[in-house]
């Protein structure tokens, strides 16, 4: 399995984890460890920014892990830029998962504000990983604005519905010159494997692990699914159904000379 490279940093794991919705920080930590992830996103609103001994953060921070603060809670580009600067100060990293969802019900990303914020944050020196709609044109615009990855959604966040946007994800993956991380909606290891088989660079999973009967075991299941999907993609998938046989008659091509 090839290594994933984002903004010059290498990752051995192509599974990213979110940190919401766990029963306890201890269980979250165990799940993170079991998943072997090297990128964990955390909502800056959840952290006591003044407190160096914040309990949640203690359970995440480790040498192998790239901490990815996210701006969950902000409603427009201006708020996002402000939050990003706070996060950089507090977490000591310029990596940022940009999330702008003014809609509190479905938490759907605001495309216009996300693009605006990406443009500003890149200029301010951030490594920006924007959570976005599975909109191929938007993804190209984010790439042009200097985003380090794009993180299109597979389905509305928290729904566990899998790759409802697969036709658009396919186009995004085909066109992208930066890693494509499928974020939101991945509810089962098979969904993650499907995304990876399609050529996604990584998957970000939170709810499906956090609310599983056994989050630690589910973290392992996702680890293996992501690896299996990636390996299948790199190996070149075989024929699914062999519908194409040579045809005895040639009504369309009989005009051709030998």
């Amino acid at each position: 399995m090839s290594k994933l490279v984002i903004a010059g940093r290498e990752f051995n794991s192509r599974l990213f984890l979110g940190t919401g919705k766990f029963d306890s920080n201890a269980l979250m930590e165990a799940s993170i460890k079991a998943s072997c992830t090297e990128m964990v996103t955390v909502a800056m609103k959840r952290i006591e920014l003044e407190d160096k001994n914040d309990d949640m953060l203690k359970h995440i921070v480790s040498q192998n892990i790239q901490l990815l603060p996210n701006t969950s809670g902000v409603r427009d580009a201006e708020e996002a830029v402000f939050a990003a600067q706070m996060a950089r100060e507090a977490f000591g990293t310029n990596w940022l998962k940009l999330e702008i969802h003014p809609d509190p019900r479905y938490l759907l990303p605001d495309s216009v504000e996300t693009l605006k914020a990406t443009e500003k944050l890149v200029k301010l020196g951030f490594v920006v990983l924007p959570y976005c709609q599975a909109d191929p044109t938007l993804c190209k615009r984010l790439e042009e604005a200097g985003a380090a990855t794009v993180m299109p959604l597979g389905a509305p966040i928290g729904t566990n519905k899998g790759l409802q946007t697969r036709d658009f994800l396919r186009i995004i993956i085909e066109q992208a010159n930066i890693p494509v991380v499928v974020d939101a909606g991945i509810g089962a290891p098979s969904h993650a494997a499907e995304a990876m088989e399609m050529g996604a660079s990584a998957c970000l999973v939170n709810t499906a692990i956090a609310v599983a009967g056994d989050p630690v075991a589910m973290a392992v299941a996702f680890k293996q699914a992501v690896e299996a999907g990636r390996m299948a993609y790199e190996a070149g998938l075989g024929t699914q159904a062999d519908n194409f046989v040579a045809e005895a008659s040639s009504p369309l091509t009989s005009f051709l000379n030998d």
Partner: protein
Amino acid sequence: MFSDELLKIDWDETTAKIAAKTDADVRRALSKEHCDVEDFMALISPAATPYLETMARLSKKYTEERFGKTISMFIPLYITNSCTNSCVYCGFHISNPMARTILTPEQCEDEYKAIKKLGPFENLLIVTGENPAKAGVPYIAKALDIAKKYFSNLKIEVMPLSTEEYAELTKHGMNGVICFQETYNRANYNIYHPKGMKSKFEWRCNGFDRMGQAGVHSIGMGVLIGLEKEWRTDITMMAYHLRYLQKHYWKTKYSVNFPRMRPAENGGFQPNCIMSDKELAQVTFAMRIFDHDVDISYSTREPAFIRDNMACLGVTTMSAESKTEPGGYYTYPEALEQFHVNDDRTAVEINARLKELGREPVWKDWDSSFDELKLQKD
């Protein structure tokens, strides 16, 4: 720039890969809705020849899904055959002791008027040789300025230009650029293009990046079949190039051409390979299966029966009633042509035949008011 990408793709390795493609590889490619370049290699390989009919069926299906039954019609106009290059296969070769013509603006206008009498042409392709001193960008700009009055969509097929020059010509109404790399085989390129600006492989190859950077709307690509014996490798390189351009200049529309050289009857350059009709059809179908959206263009180099049949199976753009000598429509109907035209039917005849075949020839698919708008915004 694509020349850097090309360094990573070994010519001989690619040739070997194509030759090693198996029946299973072909079946896998045919079963996929979205093929990659590896699949494309399988589809143009000898292993795919038993599947020609299946490929035709798929190519027809994808073409009709994307383009319906339309065929976009255009006409080329050579405004000069003055050229400082010495391409060994070209009639406009610098050492060829022929009379050289650079049409005056007035003569260009006569040609435009003459073309409008042939058919309802709105898509014009302006062609030149390479002589920047005598027929450079200002000359081309002038030809475009006048052409705008007669045609709604203007493309050029001229020497590779700088990004700024492409941007400048866009301001004069240029909507697209056609440029054939001729061959992607760096090692042999200079055998065919020994002197002049065209001998600079990277300048030509990266011209497509410059077009993309200048925001050119439509880019036409092509490999000249007859230069490299391993034409399958050459076409594979073009497939890589197409994918590269689509990824980097995603707002541009692309077209591909597979111009075939014929054996020369009067001595001159003999092609190193001859692509059969079946092979041309296979490559065309493979390109359509590989890319459902790319425009596939056949010129009047191809005989009428090939063009008519292929117009129903994958080809989406055609020229008609072309003259390949400068001023050939009005000013100098007897001048020396660049290459021989095999389909010499009139535009009216071709139009009627395409309709008989259930195709819809499209003459106008652009409006110059869009260009005006863009200029105002800039």
